């Protein structure tokens, strides 16, 4: 009993170990390539440096990936987050651009509230499609992914809306206690989600729904409601991420905001050890996953390689991480090493293979 417990602990340690190791290796490689990589300097009361940049730029991705983690752990997937980012950014910018005093805090807050409200409606739409009507998540959210881009362009009338609002800009570029404000927003969201899921029974309920929605329903959990909430939360996270993305450039482009962020987010979630089949999730793993992806992107920029080519590296990382996590691959690998698969792998295997 004790032996299996400790083995289980090493297994869970393992899951975070690999992503963390990858992140560490990347940072180390960067430092070797560019010795000044890790240096941080204080200028005008703000900290500057590559690590700070990585943190700041990864904040939207962390937010989107947080929501995605919960959706994936219910056995679903949310492809519409990129479109939701674009729509919320577009609404906020559109409202602010129409006001005479763009720097007024009230205006900005109203804009944010409006955009967040619309995002919640969109999330509810996804939730209803999946939880009430029972459409496959990948296709239910595909609808909004396709139509949402169109809606975002409809809101901005195909234009790039530029605004000049200091409070809005602060969401993306502002500072708090020498660190970028965006990091704190992402961190606060992460802590909030973690507190709600890991300090209450909610997390376990979400995992049980992801493991088997029907069985959970029979056990007295309102599966439909849990799934619905996951999609609403995902949309809300995407909306805040959309604010950050638009605030970073002080403009809203219905076509470009949040493009491919859903793929990066899914990637971050998978790298973090959350199984795409649902049933278990690791928020800390997701955050490390998001940092890995942002570090990869920054590295590629720093090495003067075209940003698109970074997709090549991403492909390699995805396949490597998925292979490491695939039970079939592990079984093969360990069998080759010591003829019989270790008991821990067997105990772990059925859990992984439970489909959504």
């Amino acid at each position, binding site marked *: 009993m004790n032996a299996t417990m400790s083995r289980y602990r090493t297994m869970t340690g393992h899951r975070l170990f690999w992503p963390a190791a990858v992140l560490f290796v990347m940072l180390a490689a960067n430092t070797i390539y560019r010795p000044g990589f890790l240096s941080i300097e204080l200028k005008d009361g703000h900290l500057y440096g590559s690590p700070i940049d990585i943190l700041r730029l990864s904040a939207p991705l962390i937010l989107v990936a947080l929501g995605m983690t919960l959706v994936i752990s219910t056995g679903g997937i949310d492809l519409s987050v990129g479109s939701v980012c674009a729509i919320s950014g577009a609404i906020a910018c559109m409202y602010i651009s129409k006001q005479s005093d763009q720097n007024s805090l009230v205006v900005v807050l109203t804009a944010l509230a409006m955009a967040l409200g619309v995002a919640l409606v969109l999330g509810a739409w996804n939730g209803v499609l999946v939880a009430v009507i029972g459409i496959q998540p990948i296709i239910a959210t595909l609808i909004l992914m396709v139509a949402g881009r169109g809606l975002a*362009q409809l809101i901005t009338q195909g234009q790039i809306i530029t605004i000049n609002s200091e409070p809005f800009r602060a969401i993306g570029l502002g500072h708090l206690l020498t660190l970028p404000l965006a990091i704190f927003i992402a961190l606060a969201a992460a802590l909030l989600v973690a507190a709600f899921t890991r300090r209450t029974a909610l997390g376990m309920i979400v995992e049980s729904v992801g493991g088997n929605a029907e069985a959970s329903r029979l056990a007295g959990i309102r599966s439909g409601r849990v799934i619905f909430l996951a999609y609403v939360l995902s949309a809300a996270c995407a909306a805040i991420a959309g604010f950050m993305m638009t605030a970073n450039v002080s403009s809203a482009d*219905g076509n470009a905001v949040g493009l491919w962020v859903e793929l990066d987010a899914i990637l971050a979630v998978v790298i973090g050890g959350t199984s795409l089949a649902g049933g278990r999730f690791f928020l800390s793993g997701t955050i490390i996953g998001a940092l890995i992806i942002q570090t990869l992107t920054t590295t590629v920029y720093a090495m003067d390689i075209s940003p698109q080519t970074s997709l090549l590296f991403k492909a390699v990382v995805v*396949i490597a991480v998925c292979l490491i996590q695939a039970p079939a691959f592990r079984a093969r690998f360990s069998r080759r090493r010591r003829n019989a698969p270790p008991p821990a792998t067997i105990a772990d295997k059925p859990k992984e293979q439970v489909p959504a």
Partner: protein
Amino acid sequence: MTTGLLTPGRARFRLPRKQIPVLATLALLLVMYGIGVSQYTAFSNVQVIFNVFIDNGFLLVVAIGMTFVILTGGIDLSVGSVVAMTAMVSAWLLQEGLPAALVLVIALLIGPTLGLLMGCAIHFFDIQPFIVTLAGMFFARGMCTFISGSSIPITDGFWTRMSQERIGDPRGNFVSISVLIAFVVVAVAAYTLAYTRLGRNVYAIGGNPQSALLMGLPVGRTRIAVYTISGLCSAIGGILLSFYTLSGAPLIAVGMELDVIAAVVIGGTVLTGGAGYVFGTVLGVLVLGVIQTLITFDGSLNSWWTKIVIGGLLFAFILLQRLIGIRYK
């Protein structure tokens, strides 16, 4: 996507119901065409229909490959990138001065090879098709920019001939060679799905992989085969696209996988696999093509309406599939 679950008490679908989505698509297509003809006089010109085929020939070919994958209950996100990579590689090799025939062979081999590798990863390591083909998508798109950051023009004689050759009647209506190639692919695919052992296996696996395995069908081989077929179709689609644009651009066909999936779904193929036809996919592609044509004819509507309408149609058809109770998870 979740091909591994046995759900007890799932109702067997009844035969006439199976055709309803395809018939609905056909009806929609006719209604849209009717609207077009009644609104714009030039719309009744036969060339309008031919143009839909000319503009969407490559989309049709790629959608055929996707139909195979979706019929087994999988998904292939890499198609758009593979199309771009094929066009890019052929443009690059032609620029390097390789003979056209050799370039064609190489370009047509890349897609299936990538598809084969992805199929193997999906089958042997039991990783979700979604994530494997996502990696394939990143890889192919990365290769595009790796080859060249900017667009490469094609000046090769064979390519320009294929691009400019017009096959038509004396009245001036014509189709391009690409359309004929697309029709050949459609015919071969329809025959394969309906009359060959591979086609039966594809439907059987999409219906229920466990049962297929217990029946002794080669599940693994078929699953790998459909991703290879999808890769091949994407490669052909890439060649057709390079005929159409006479260039290879690293950012061409971005987001095409969504159009392709939408076409397949609108064509009545059920995303959990096991039900659908090549003919439906042809109709699905035509619906997308006619929407674009309608929006072009109506000058006041903007291009983003295309996306909104496609999204709306996707919703309507998925709801229809759900309502008529075709097996859906």
